[in-house]
């Protein structure tokens, strides 16, 4: 459809009664359309006829509104612009160019309030348009005195409720205005600083007739599209697919995950990567960083040692890794040392009250043994600092001493070292100062977020979209 300058006296050609179709029907339920955009289908039981999308400039209000418009279906949405002409909007949001072409675009920049209300009557009366977006409502409303504004808004609400059309108002007014009280739903888009990076968050202030179990969600505008992140869900390891071996990246080892490789550029031989995590980060999210490098090392004929996170289930570790690389490989070139399990200490001829130095000796010996079996003599050491801290809480200095010895030894070898470090670790700063690279994981609004501190990276949402073992990282922009 083409851009038109709205003319108050002349009904738009598209609204000619003979060319109009009947109402949108049950399949176009408004709550379903909003839900499909916001990913909140399970929460949307009530009909939302009028929705206010508010937020400061640059938060993505127009993109969200256009996504809702897109969900209306081709030719069933109208975009009423009081700010910019269509051509400019297409330049601002190229990803939405098709949506803008598929829907009616009405340029009302120079129209007054009564003409706009007349326009809404024309748009809603034939029941052709199921979604009408006002971007922005403020631009018009600010020309009206408060009482007149309230009445104009009430008129719009009445028109929406009678026609069955959904009106979406875009507003840059951060404070509550009269329309806040009239609309059925309010979404606010905000940008917040998190660890020196910007995170986008949308807040559901109200959705009438709808339970709101979670009010805040993280979203991204990557590639000019609105993508929201629901709470992190633990992957179903039964759905694990065959692991694809990933080659080394130049002189660096692959993480066994395209997403991690793209983020960090691989593991340089002799380097130590520390993964710092908040206490509320699910272990399954950490496993998405823990397992792929091990699996890739093993599948490339190399060896690996794993000191698992506290609470790790030995059988599950074994089952996942066996499924990925086969039992023979796991038995031959992987050593899992559960230091909280006394049987491992006994196997290694260590007393129950083993010292950090004694554990270090086990690791050194195992490394030497596994190095012989490794195709290129390299070994990956993946270690939970938390597990060691729990064991040696009264002797952290020794633990630190041993860890630093390991890091130095590793630097001189071609091995790779990944340390999982809880945020509140008493030896955190010392470990980090010795690490060649450093990433952080934390949870916000139920979404697991990750970023590299060293090297500095953007911030990413961690999910399991393709494989339960590998992380999917979506950049927050």
């Amino acid at each position: 459809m083409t851009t038109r300058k709205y003319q108050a006296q002349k009904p738009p050609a598209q609204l000619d009664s003979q060319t109009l179709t009947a109402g949108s029907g049950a399949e176009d339920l408004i709550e379903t359309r909003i839900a499909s955009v916001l990913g909140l289908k399970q929460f949307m039981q009530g009909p939302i006829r009028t929705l206010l999308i508010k937020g400061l400039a640059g938060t993505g209000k127009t993109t969200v509104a256009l996504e809702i418009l897109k969900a209306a279906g081709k030719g069933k949405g109208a975009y009423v612009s009081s700010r910019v002409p269509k051509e400019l909007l297409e330049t601002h949001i190229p990803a939405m160019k098709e949506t803008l072409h598929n829907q009616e675009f009405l340029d009302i920049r120079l129209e007054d309030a009564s003409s706009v209300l007349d326009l809404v009557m024309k748009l809603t009366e034939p029941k052709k348009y199921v979604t009408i977006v006002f971007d922005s409502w403020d631009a018009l409303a600010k020309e009206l005195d408060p009482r007149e504004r309230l009445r104009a808004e009430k008129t719009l609400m009445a028109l929406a409720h009678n026609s069955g059309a959904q009106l979406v108002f875009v507003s840059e007014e951060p404070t509550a205005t009269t329309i806040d009280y009239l609309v059925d739903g309010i979404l606010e888009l905000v940008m917040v600083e998190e660890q020196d990076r910007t995170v986008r968050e949308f807040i559901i202030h109200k959705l009438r007739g709808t339970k709101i179990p979670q009010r805040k969600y993280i979203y991204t505008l990557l590639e000019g599209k609105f993508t929201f992140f629901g709470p992190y869900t633990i992957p179903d390891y039964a759905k694990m697919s065959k692991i694809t071996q990933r080659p080394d990246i130049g002189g660096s080892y692959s993480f066994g995950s395209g997403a991690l490789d793209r983020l960090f550029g691989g593991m340089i031989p002799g380097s130590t990567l520390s993964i710092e995590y908040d206490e509320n980060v699910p272990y399954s999210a950490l496993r998405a960083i823990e397992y792929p490098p091990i699996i890739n090392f093993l599948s490339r004929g190399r060896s690996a040692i794993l000191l698992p996170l506290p609470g790790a289930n030995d059988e599950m570790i074994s089952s996942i890794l066996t499924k990925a690389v086969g039992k023979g490989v796991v038995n031959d070139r992987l050593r899992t040392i559960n230091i909280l399990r006394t049987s491992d200490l006994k196997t290694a001829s260590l007393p129950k009250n083993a010292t950090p130095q004694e554990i270090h000796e086990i690791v050194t010996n195992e490394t030497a043994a596994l190095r012989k079996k490794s195709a290129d003599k390299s070994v990956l050491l993946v270690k939970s600092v938390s597990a060691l801290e729990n064991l040696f809480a009264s002797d952290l200095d020794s633990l630190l001493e041993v860890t630093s010895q390991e890091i130095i030894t590793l630097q001189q070898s071609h091995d790779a070292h990944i340390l999982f470090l809880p945020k509140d670790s008493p030896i955190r700063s010392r470990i980090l100062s010795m690490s060649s690279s450093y990433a952080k994981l934390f949870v916000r609004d139920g979404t697991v977020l990750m970023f590299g501190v060293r090297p500095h990276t953007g911030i990413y949402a961690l999910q399991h979209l393709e494989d339960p073992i590998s992380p999917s990282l979506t950049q927050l922009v």
Partner: protein
Amino acid sequence: MGGFSVAFASAVHGGLDRILGQSGAEAVLLHMKMTNDLPDPAEFHRKLLTLFGAQGTLSLERAIVKDLAIRLSWSLSLLKIEDSFDFSETMRAIEKGAKA
């Protein structure tokens, strides 16, 4: 136009204005193409129904009747508009009374 006609036209503007605001009232009349002509009550009622539904129309028509009653110095208690009422019928009754 006679006294009733002038009062009715003014009451339509006044009643709609009271509920919808000036811009809303203008928009409705513009939309109904009734900016100059005196609305036929039955046609007016039908068009309001299309735009605002039964409840919205009732509120608007009640506001128009109240406005008209004030203009013609009628007592509202005589008009029985508290519940649903026939707008055309009421208009005819007021017109008849005004002429009497």
